[in-house]
């Protein structure tokens, strides 16, 4: 029994290899060879209506051509018999540093955060490394697209993240170049909302530093004034652009980048966790007429009515995290998604990380364990993030005409032990092989040491 279990993943892997070989394409080549696939006899969770038993899904030219229980298999289609398997939309990790950071502790491999407080013109897509080992590792867990977010923290941020951190890019987790990977170059503007910080963490001495409240408040007010000033100037710049008089103004790349923000066309991804900061952020964006998306939101539950009434969606941190305060219930973060869902707040669940991106499904499942209805958990890692970033008509569900980012699994994609059998990104069968797999194979076959 146990030997069979050991062999199972190898066999799966070998059969996948054979399959690819028989098709005469490698996953990489497949990128440039659009073809027709038909996944048959699968239970299909479209997330747009009830699951289809014994359904067929047809992929053509990168898009979902048809999905249903009585769909014909087109002539010449590559057929995947998925009897006993299930089909789901690929997962969308709505907040990562994918491609921007390889090894957290090595600054030479980290391009997450630019120096300075106001960098609205920098764009994540510029620095995404298509060869990052994180990409194949992450997609092996069924994650087909992510938002790469600059100035979004992580181990490597060194504490400082700036205020206007740059533009987040939505990318597919496959492609030879960033152009092939790109879904939306500018999907949101990062705003690390100023906090009234009486305590800061000093990385150079690894200790906390205290500051009197009045001083902290003054510093906060100064930052808000500065930020307001940026928005005002961007608005003037937009007017100048409309009048065609930018040349007199001198071209200003930073203000130019903020124009879609002040016009309300580009959403602002606002990082705030504490209730006070969230409230301040909502009020600020309301005043400035910005389209706000809240990122972090550890205490979003305290402002659920406000968020609901202002239609502010939330990108939640992993629920597998401890509560902020000692006297919070121990499961405060775990039960928050259920609470937000009940209050009608729209949210996505994200990893906020690179190497832990593959825990996305695990986090969503834990939210279910603490009260979130299962279908809402699934939506929080598929269609919700797609909709929040204006990609809802292209991704997130299995519907005709959408980009064919999907996975074929042997079970619930949120459960720890489920395997992704086939992965499609942009309608191409994409390898789930990765660095971890390669090392596994290599050392599994190490001859016994003498």
């Amino acid at each position, binding site marked *: 029994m*146990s030997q069979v*279990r*050991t*062999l*199972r*993943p190898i066999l799966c892997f070998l059969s996948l290899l054979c399959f690819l070989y028989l098709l005469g394409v490698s996953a990489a080549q497949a990128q440039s060879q659009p073809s027709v696939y038909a996944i048959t006899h699968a239970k299909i969770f479209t997330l747009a209506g009830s699951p289809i038993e014994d359904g067929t899904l047809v992929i053509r030219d990168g898009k979902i051509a048809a999905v249903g229980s009585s769909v014909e298999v087109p002539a010449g289609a590559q057929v995947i018999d998925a009897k006993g398997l299930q089909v789901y939309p690929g997962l969308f990790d709505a907040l990562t540093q994918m491609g921007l950071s390889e*090894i957290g*502790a*090595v600054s030479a491999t980290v391009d997450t955060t630019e120096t300075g407080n106001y960098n609205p013109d920098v764009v994540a897509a510029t620095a995404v490394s298509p060869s990052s*080992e*994180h990409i194949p590792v992450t997609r092996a867990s069924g994650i087909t697209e992510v938002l790469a977010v600059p100035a979004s923290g992580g*181990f490597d941020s060194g504490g400082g993240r700036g205020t206007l951190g740059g533009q987040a890019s939505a990318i597919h987790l496959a492609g030879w170049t960033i152009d092939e990977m790109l879904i939306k170059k500018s999907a949101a503007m990062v705003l690390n909302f100023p*906090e*009234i*910080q*009486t*305590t*800061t*963490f000093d990385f*150079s001495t*690894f200790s906390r530093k*205290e500051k*009197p*409240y*009045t001083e902290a408040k003054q510093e906060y007010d100064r930052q808000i004034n500065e930020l307001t000033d940026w928005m005002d100037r961007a608005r003037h710049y937009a007017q100048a652009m409309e009048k065609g008089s930018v040349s007199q103004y001198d071209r200003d790349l930073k203000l130019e980048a903020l124009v879609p923000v002040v016009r309300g066309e580009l959403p602002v991804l606002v990082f705030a*966790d*504490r209730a*006070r900061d969230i409230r301040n952020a909502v009020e600020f964006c309301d005043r400035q007429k910005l389209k706000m998306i809240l990122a972090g939101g550890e205490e979003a539950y305290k402002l659920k009515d406000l968020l609901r009434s202002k239609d502010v969606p939330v990108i939640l941190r992993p629920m*597998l*995290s*401890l509560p*902020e*305060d*000692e*006297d919070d*219930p*121990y*499961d405060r973060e775990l039960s928050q998604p259920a609470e937000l869902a009940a209050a009608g707040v729209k949210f996505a669940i994200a990893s906020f990380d690179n*190497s*832990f991106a*593959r*825990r996305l499904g*695990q986090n969503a*499942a*834990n939210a*279910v*364990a603490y009260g979130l209805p299962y279908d809402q958990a699934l939506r929080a890692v598929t269609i919700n993030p797609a909709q929040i970033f204006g990609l809802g008509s292209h991704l997130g569900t299995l519907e005709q005409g959408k980009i064919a980012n999907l996975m074929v699994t042997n079970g619930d994609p*949120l*459960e*720890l*032990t*489920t395997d992704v059998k086939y992965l499609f990104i942009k309608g191409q069968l994409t390898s789930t092989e990765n660095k*971890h797999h390669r*090392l*596994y194979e290599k*050392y*599994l076959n*190490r001859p*016994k*040491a003498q």
Partner: protein
Amino acid sequence: MSAPTIRGSSRSPFLYFFYLLSFLYLSFSVSAATPPDAPSVILIQNATVLTVSHGKIEHGSVLIKDGKIAEVGQSIKAPAGAQVIDASGEFVIPGIIDCHSHIAAESINEGSVSVSSMVTMEEVLDPDDIDIYRDLAGGVTSANILHGSANSIGGQTLVIKLRWGQPASKLPFEGAMPGIKFALGENPKRSNFSLPGQPRRYPSTRMGVEETIRGAFSEARDYKKAWDDYNKRVAAGEKNLIPPRRDLKLEPLVEVLEGKRYVHSHCYREDEILMLLRVAKEFGFKVRTFQHVLEGYKVADELAAEGVGASTFSDWWAYKVEAYDAIPYNAALMTRRGVIVSINSDSAEEATHLNQEAAKSMKYGGLSHDEALKMVTLNPAIQLGIDKRVGTIDVGKDADLAIYNHDPLSAYAVVQKTLIDGRVYFDREKDIANRAEVEKEKKALTEKLKKAEKKPEERKPEEKKPEEKPKPPAPTPTPTAAGASQGGAL
């Protein structure tokens, strides 16, 4: 040392003041952290019992008498006066054992020297650390509390039981072998922690880490010899001998040489793992466990041959160079080559779902359900030398148990109760029922604070007195709330 979290680093002075108030309040009331009752007989029934040692019992019962497991079986009749826990549809497993934890400690890094064997976790135990309760709520019943990894040879470690509500003196796992933390690689050589303008501390290479350990054990061997000679001469009847001078740094290393103290060594790369095995051989001691050991899969045969345990993470990787070859198949690969493997947390948060982390070894490397569960129960018990007492559900063992509402190797499983020594230290139902009370208490305190803030001149005379002595005068006049924040930080 893992990735530090700085979220929540900003705390309003209001909150600090609140903390101070709650602290004062709690020290006069005994509301939150009182240990639970200890009923002498408990029967858990109708549960799926995952014994770990002898398979699964459907609709099983576990009878607890005086804190020990008295009977395990299909249907046990409740003795008269027994407290009955109906666990229909639920799963009972041995309490989770975390082989690498830093909870319940006031501080963990004596980072000034590379051999800090004189310091000990027992002296900094903090029984009020809320993370004890949070981990308890994750089914953890015992944990190996380790010193940090800034030193080649770090401080002395301690195995505790998570007896929330008990004083520090009641936390240590009675009779558990004491341990000591070693650390290899990037952390002891301070690769990621150098301060600009400051000279680097020796060692700053893996070569230097080896020599630091060899140097310390050379000294320890000499020290041991001095004492052995002295004791021999005393035994032979010699009088008026001057005993060797006591050395608190070398004493624990002598205990390592004598096999009276376990070595738990933090490590990542294959080369440093083999290095420590060579040094251990040279000086004649054993390494009990390698901790993290993310490249353990590369030298699994060598680990197995030495009988060293491996305590690793489920799927952490890429946070530093030495973690770049870390793979989630590590636990399975080492297990297949005969290494006793546990999955540890190194984090108060990760400890709350070690059951889930263990489950990943079924996906990555195809371990069985039983093998996976062992990695957070029996295997860490073996590694810590406490497997005669805990780690499986067997008659005679301590009644340290966790009860889940689903199969614990699922992401949907939630701990319902955690028992230690036959006492229910965590009960989800009670926790939830108690929340309104906690909220009320918090509100009352907040009201009190608001009143206090309104009349700062009135409360000054009362509060000034105890604060005056330990504190130098504040450099600038600060508002009352900020002044309180300094008090709270004490």
